[in-house]
């Protein structure tokens, strides 16, 4: 782990530990929980897009698979929550592998549409054959482990963000590993990678599966926290929202995905006061921030910090 990552990691853990102590307001913690759930999906998409260079508009599909499979396994099959969550991730990984083999041969807009199509098909399936159909189903058990059930908002906050920290630890190490370097190489030039003897296709499929597993983990957390799910939470709109989080935070930095997830989740809450104008203001803020913070919030922040430290910023 590099120095910057290590300090960011410590800061993250500090914030996770401190926030519930300073603000016991369940409202803020709930928004925090949703930010964390979204961050998990965004981190997965960030590795896929920023490092492997593959677009996906189908993350909502894997998110939905995670939520539904975990709920069905725990409600109807009576499995322990942890087992059903792992089951959900396995199913999502399998779905991702099946989709990845033909889809990752496509590129650019065509890949985007293929993943979009996959997400929408999952959405239709959940609507038609999911338990409860379009209106969804409830009474999903809360998260429990070794007989201890989490009911409190604070408990869920620690659970979700604890998992974000674990996932982040794994992701940062992955990025700086041999695989991570290979991924960045794929992003820059697939042809060169092939020439160097890297199995590009296998690498892309693995990353695609990883991003699906993250999304499924987030989906199952969502289901066991809210205890009620319906297909509308897993539509194309969610995939686009996650994409927005990754871009706003900065596609080249996984920490950006966490910041992006928090910003995009908190923003609509702050805009409540605009009532009927909230959609308009939301759109304007997005447009302006995309135009003026083009690299994303975190890369810009890093540049600023480096400048303050007096480092010469090397421009590419």
């Amino acid at each position: 782990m590099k120095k910057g990552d290590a300090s960011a990691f410590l800061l993250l853990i500090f914030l996770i530990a401190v926030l519930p102590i300073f603000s016991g307001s369940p409202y803020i913690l709930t928004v925090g929980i949703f930010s964390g759930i979204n961050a998990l999906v965004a981190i997965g998409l960030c590795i896929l897009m920023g490092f492997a260079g593959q677009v996906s508009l189908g993350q909502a599909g894997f998110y939905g698979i995670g939520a539904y499979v975990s709920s069905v396994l725990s409600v109807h099959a009576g499995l322990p929550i942890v087992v059903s969550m792992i089951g959900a991730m396995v199913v999502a990984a399998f779905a991702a592998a099946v989709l990845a083999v033909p889809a990752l041969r496509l590129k650019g807009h065509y890949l985007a549409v293929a993943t979009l199509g996959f997400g929408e098909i999952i959405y239709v399936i959940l609507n038609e054959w999911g338990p409860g159909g379009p209106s969804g189903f409830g009474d999903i058990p809360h998260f429990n482990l070794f007989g201890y059930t989490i009911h409190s908002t604070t408990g869920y906050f620690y659970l979700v963000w604890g998992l974000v920290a674990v996932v982040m630890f794994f992701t940062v190490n992955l990025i700086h590993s041999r695989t991570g370097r290979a991924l960045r190489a794929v992003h820059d030039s697939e042809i060169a990678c092939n020439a160097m003897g890297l199995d590009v296709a296998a690498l892309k499929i693995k990353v695609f599966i990883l991003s699906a597993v993250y999304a499924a983990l987030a989906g199952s957390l969502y289901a066991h926290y809210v205890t009620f799910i319906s297909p509308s939470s897993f539509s194309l709109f969610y995939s686009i929202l996650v994409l927005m989080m990754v871009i706003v935070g900065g596609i080249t930095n996984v920490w950006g995905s966490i910041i992006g997830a928090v910003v995009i989740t908190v923003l609509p809450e702050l805009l409540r006061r605009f009532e009927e104008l909230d959609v308009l203001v939301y759109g304007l803020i997005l447009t302006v921030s995309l135009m003026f913070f083009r690299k994303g919030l975190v890369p810009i922040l890093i540049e600023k910090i480096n400048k303050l430290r007096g480092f010469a910023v090397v421009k590419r």
Partner: protein
Amino acid sequence: MLTVFLQFLFSGLTVGAVYALVGIGFNITYNATSIINLAQGEFVVIGGLMMWFFSESLKLPFFVSVVLTIITAGLVGLLMERLTIKPLKNPDLLLMIMITIAVSIVLRGVLMFYFGKDPYVYPAFTEGEPLSIYGAIIQQQTLWVIGITGFCIIALFFFFKKTIIGKAMLACAVNPTAAQLVGINVSRMVMVSFILSAIVGAIGGMAITPISLMEYDKGPMLAVKGFCAAIMGGLGSNRGAVLGGFIIGILESMTAGYIHSGLKDAVALIILLLILFFKPAGLFVSKAMLQLRKY
């Protein structure tokens, strides 16, 4: 049997015509800029709602309303390009596409603020008895939709083949640097492409509203379907978008009619995935052509 089949076929053609127009709209901007303008669906909504505004709310004559709606849509396209696309120098393509999504949210916000969440409708372009072919009932407006789509396709064909602006736009699509070298104002062509795609979308919206009503949030669905139509035919190919639009429209209406209405979106998308997996560049674009473009 035949009657029911024809009925489904005609309803599929009507929806397909609008998908085709949205798909063509995507192609026009894509050809000039490589951008997928995901606010394309909002242009259709603007067409429908502004037509209602001019003809029903202000009670202007039909042709004046049509002209004013087209001008409004063109202005929206112009403003969108000048305010959000042009100021960015050498931007990342993905970023541009996200900006078009953000702009579509802004447009939806404006439309919702003014028109609210209710669906709007105005009378068909011509009054009269519906036609009956082998027992299948066809509203006159359906013929208008299909006719207007056909007219747009032919007009665009001549625009790109015969006029100097159209040829210049095609040149930008093939190679922007070379186009600039022979004295084509690439930036202006990008602007024209946004205006043109907005107008094409708005025309679709004006034609379809008497049949299927129009509300502020129909845009994303239309954009997704039109995008699928364009991809199915091969991005950049207008006849591909037309064929793709009609295939998706007819598949949807046949699935809804014969199998189950809830599955109509899935069937069209499964066909799209299959086409992409076996012919990754779409129906009308060769793989070699695809490799020439980065996206």
